[in-house]
């Protein structure tokens, strides 16, 4: 492998460390499509699975990074335009928002780990939130000053409150302000430092902690009360900036702490710009799996929306969002690769195009074998099909891969037809060539390609090309970077070895994808507390899908990559009383919730198919895990299983059911991309 720098491997976190230009350069402006100007004046909840770019979105809107765009708009033209469109920059490119990013990961939940009495723990938690939020706003306001034309150098920054607000004056007093109407940035920082010192001593000093020192803390958030009404002043003049607080990683808080912040939104104590980012894992299994069920369980999103809150899912949460999300993924991949390709590969071809540049060179032995299998079909009804498809080698303009794939697909179609006619006791008439051409659609061809990969694993690459690369991202930026890093390594290796083209071969891509897939699988136990439970469920689901695809390659073309539960079964699983009587039900609920919360399974509700059809919830296997069981990536189908059968997977460790239902009608794929 190469030791050249690989931009895909540089994590977003690394950009946090002062590399603002690199972050802005790589930021896909399309992410801002889901944001509107009004969102900066109201509470917003960003809730999604890990890796969908919540932190990056809040980061680009925060002062430190925003100022980089303001200073060099020509370097980030698309980004600057998007920021103008959503009102973060005005028409002359000046910022209108002062955003402070605060991460809630560190120290907050630990307050409850050291045996603090409940009341003291709550007071210290609130004070620490206040200290971090206000210190971040001071920093943001100072940075913003450098980007505003009408502010002089090194201005005095202060937060001013409206007249006639004794409640806010009391807040200023508690923060040791000398003034009844404002507090200076240095006063805020000094006060915040005092709080940090107390918390550090509580968490990290081994000496006894003086609880009395925190007894005078008021039991309320000071920062949010202040920011609801305060404005940023430079040298005593109102800046007019909208103040927005970005609270990242709320899921890291303990439930009681999280409730204290969410309670502010629910009670409408917060009405100005406060954004909260959290993973869906904060929802308990019942909420996570049952939010669509229409039961009495909390339907959080609706409840929150009803209280003047916007809940935004940055993932491709709906089919309508898929194409926009894919555009964004393309943009991320293109930007990440561009500089390295220019510097090291000496090519003007884009990374995504490089993935499609080469075709697998040698199909001859596989083609000979597949044609032989076709010739062995002893059924006169298909003679025209076999003649037609065998003649392709001589008369059509198809590529080698297309010819072999079509031949293999024809075998599957013949087998399916034979099975169907056998079941119907129908002797059948010869089938026309036109019928074959009609049936040889893209999904059947993909199923054939997967079958070839299974039957000739050393000769036929399956997972390659830019379509597959984007699908393997599973609508997740972090996963795109993971697969992209591995594939881009191959490109850089090609460049370093002075190959004619740095484009990776299909075989190289396939091998790389398989390795990435394997690594994601192996990492599950290290990433999740109950990772082995999740692996048990995924293994059973993967094997179940693989067996279905092998038995019926065209019935659900390109094949299934998930399973469904009926709403009735899901309700039974979620209800503690009915769950208790299902062997393996507890383990299944936890494994399903963990897998969905961490994006190893994608949960989607199937579109109702007729008034009397039962509603179902589908659980698709993350596409980067699909290669483990040789599952197709495109247009995922599924099969419905009973709750008892799926729960038995948790006990048996595999999908070994023998009670196969009759084939259902072809299910609609939910990934229509």
């Amino acid at each position, binding site marked *: *492998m190469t*030791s050249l*720098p*690989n931009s895909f*491997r540089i*994590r977003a*976190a*690394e950009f946090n*460390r*002062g590399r603002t230009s690199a972050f802005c350069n790589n930021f896909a402006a399309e992410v801002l499509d889901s944001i509107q100007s009004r969102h900066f004046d109201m509470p917003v909840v960003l809730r999604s699975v890990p890796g969908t770019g919540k932190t990056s979105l809040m980061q680009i809107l925060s002062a430190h990074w925003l100022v980089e765009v303001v200073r060099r708009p020509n370097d980030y033209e698309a980004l600057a335009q998007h920021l103008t469109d959503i009102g973060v920059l005005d028409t002359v490119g000046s910022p209108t928002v002062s955003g402070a990013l605060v*991460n809630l*990961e*560190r*120290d907050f*939940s*630990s307050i*409850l*780990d*050291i*045996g603090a009495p409940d009341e003291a723990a709550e007071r210290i938690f609130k004070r620490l939130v206040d200290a971090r939020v206000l210190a971040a706003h001071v920093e943001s306001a100072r940075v913003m000053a450098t980007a505003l034309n009408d502010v002089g150098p090194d201005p005095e920054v202060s937060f001013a409150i409206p007249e006639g607000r004794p409640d806010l004056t009391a807040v200023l007093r508690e923060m040791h302000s000398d003034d009844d109407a404002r507090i200076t940035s240095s006063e805020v920082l000094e006060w915040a430092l005092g709080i*940090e010192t107390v918390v*550090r001593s509580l*968490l*990290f*000093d*081994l000496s*006894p*902690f003086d609880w009395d020192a925190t007894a005078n803390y008021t039991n309320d958030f000071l920062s949010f009360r202040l920011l609801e009404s305060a404005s940023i002043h430079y040298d005593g003049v109102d800046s007019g900036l909208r103040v927005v607080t970005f609270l990242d990683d709320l899921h*890291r808080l*303990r439930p009681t702490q999280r409730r204290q912040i969410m309670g502010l939104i629910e009670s409408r104590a917060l009405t100005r710009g406060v954004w909260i980012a959290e993973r869906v894992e904060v929802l308990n299994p019942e909420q996570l799996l049952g939010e669509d069920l229409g039961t009495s369980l909390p339907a959080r999103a609706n409840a929150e929306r009803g209280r003047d809150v916007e809940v935004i899912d940055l993932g491709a949460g709906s089919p309508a969002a898929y194409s926009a999300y894919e555009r964004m993924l393309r943009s991320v991949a293109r930007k990440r690769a561009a500089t390295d390709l220019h510097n090291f590969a000496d090519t003007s071809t884009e990374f995504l195009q490089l993935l499609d540049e080469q075709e697998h060179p040698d199909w001859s032995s596989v083609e000979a074998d597949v044609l032989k299998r076709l010739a062995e079909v002893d059924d006169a009804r298909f003679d025209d099909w076999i003649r037609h498809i065998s003649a392709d080698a001589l008369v059509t303009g198809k590529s080698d891969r297309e010819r072999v794939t079509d031949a293999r697909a024809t075998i599957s179609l013949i087998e399916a037809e034979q099975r169907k006619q056998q079941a119907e006791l129908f002797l059948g008439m010869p089938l026309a060539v036109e019928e074959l051409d009609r049936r040889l659609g893209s999904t059947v061809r993909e199923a054939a390609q997967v079958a070839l990969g299974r039957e000739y694993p050393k000769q036929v690459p399956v997972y390659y090309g830019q379509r597959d690369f984007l699908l393997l991202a599973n609508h997740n930026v972090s996963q795109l970077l993971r697969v992209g890093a591995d594939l881009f*390594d191959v490109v850089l290796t090609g460049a370093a070895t002075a190959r004619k083209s740095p484009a990776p071969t299909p075989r190289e891509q396939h091998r790389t994808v398989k390795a990435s897939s394997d690594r994601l699988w192996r*990492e599950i*136990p*290290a*990433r*999740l*507390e*109950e*990772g*082995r439970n999740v692996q048990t469920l995924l293994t059973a689901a993967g094997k179940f899908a693989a067996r279905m695809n092998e038995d019926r390659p065209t019935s659900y073309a390109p094949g299934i990559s998930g399973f469904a539960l009926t709403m009735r079964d899901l309700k039974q699983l979620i209800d503690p009383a009915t769950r208790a009587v299902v062997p393996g039900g507890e383990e299944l609920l936890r494994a399903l919730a963990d897998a969905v919360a961490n994006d190893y399974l994608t949960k989607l509700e199937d579109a109702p198919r007729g008034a009397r059809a039962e509603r179902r919830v589908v659980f698709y296997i993350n596409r980067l895990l699909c290669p483990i069981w040789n599952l197709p990536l495109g247009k995922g189908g599924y099969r419905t299983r009973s709750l008892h059968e799926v729960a038995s997977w948790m006990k048996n460790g595999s999908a070994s059911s023998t009670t196969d239902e009759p084939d259902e009608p072809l299910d609609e794929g939910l990934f229509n991309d």
Partner: protein
Amino acid sequence: MTDTPAAAPHRRWDDHVLGRSDQRYGFGFEEILKAAVRPGTPSLYVMGLGFDPRATVAFETAAPLLPPGSRVLAIVPKATSGGASRESAFQKSNEARAREIAASCSLELEIIQPNPEAKDTRFHGVWLVRKLREQREWLTPHVVVDISSLPSAIFFALIRAWLVERTTDLQLQVVAAESHHLDDLILDSGTLAPQFLPGFNKHGSLQELQPGTRIWLPVLGKGRLAQMEAIWTAFTPHDICPVVPFPAPDPRRGDSLVAEYGEFLFETLNVDAQKFIYADGSNPFDLYKVLMTISDRYKRALRPLGQPVIVPSTHGSKLLSLGVLLGAFEADLSVVNAGAPVSTLSDGADDESIRALASESQQTCLWLAGEPYDKSHPDAARTEGHADAEHGSD
């Protein structure tokens, strides 16, 4: 990194005392332990009581050597569900065995349950230290900390607290039953957000370190890639010096760890192979000396750029973790940790073979504070001389 100090300052454990059951370094395990016992004066024995099958191995050897009436504090590192899991069964069996041993040697056993409110076990140590400080045992003259089944967050805090606060009249010893085969059979699940360990945090937070030059010294152990990735992402070091155990009971241990982390270290982090640090896997004082030397050299080399931030992290064996503790204690380094919220026994071995491996563990006893380091004591010179002769100097 090439200059050598003209005269190395005296370090606290330059002349150390270490005993092992195989007497590899000159002293035996029991010999060292017995030397610190004051007949008629009860000792304090602090041990972990988790599911690790090594929990009672060193205790079994040490208990008969302790004066009758000595106190044994057995700390349950993490609350168990009380269910029928394999780990619960091992934990119960360890508890029963500990009670049996204590009773047979007339020792007073107290089992300390973990803080029920705690989720992040890394704060158990600070909670426990504050709790212990209120008990009379805190002032016991002879303290033995058995780290065989204690998480690093607990024994780091305990040992540091005793070293800092009991500067006189304390014989502090640390014992461990060690088997890297068993280390490999204990699997971590999940990864906690990287954080400094209580007592070993002079910097506040990883994020606050960003302006300085950051050096990371991860002590490699099997199956800890996710933890290392999490630390790297949060810390973003400028330089990385991975520590591998060599020599080690398994001579290929270092090679297999480098192979396991090869892609991460070489492809992702671009670690220079010359930066690898080798430390004796059986002798924590070796890693201690290496950490002292390397931190001293980095500090001198990078002085023109300001004070570098040197942060070790522990992913390997208990003994190497102890080496990190000693080095970090004396060199005043912060120690970062991204431990797992849950650990389980591997399905790859049955109960019988796990118990067999535990019983074959090598037992080590380190004397960290007290007589051997007391310059006025008539035996001090003899002990130092022996340690030097056996181990040499750095």
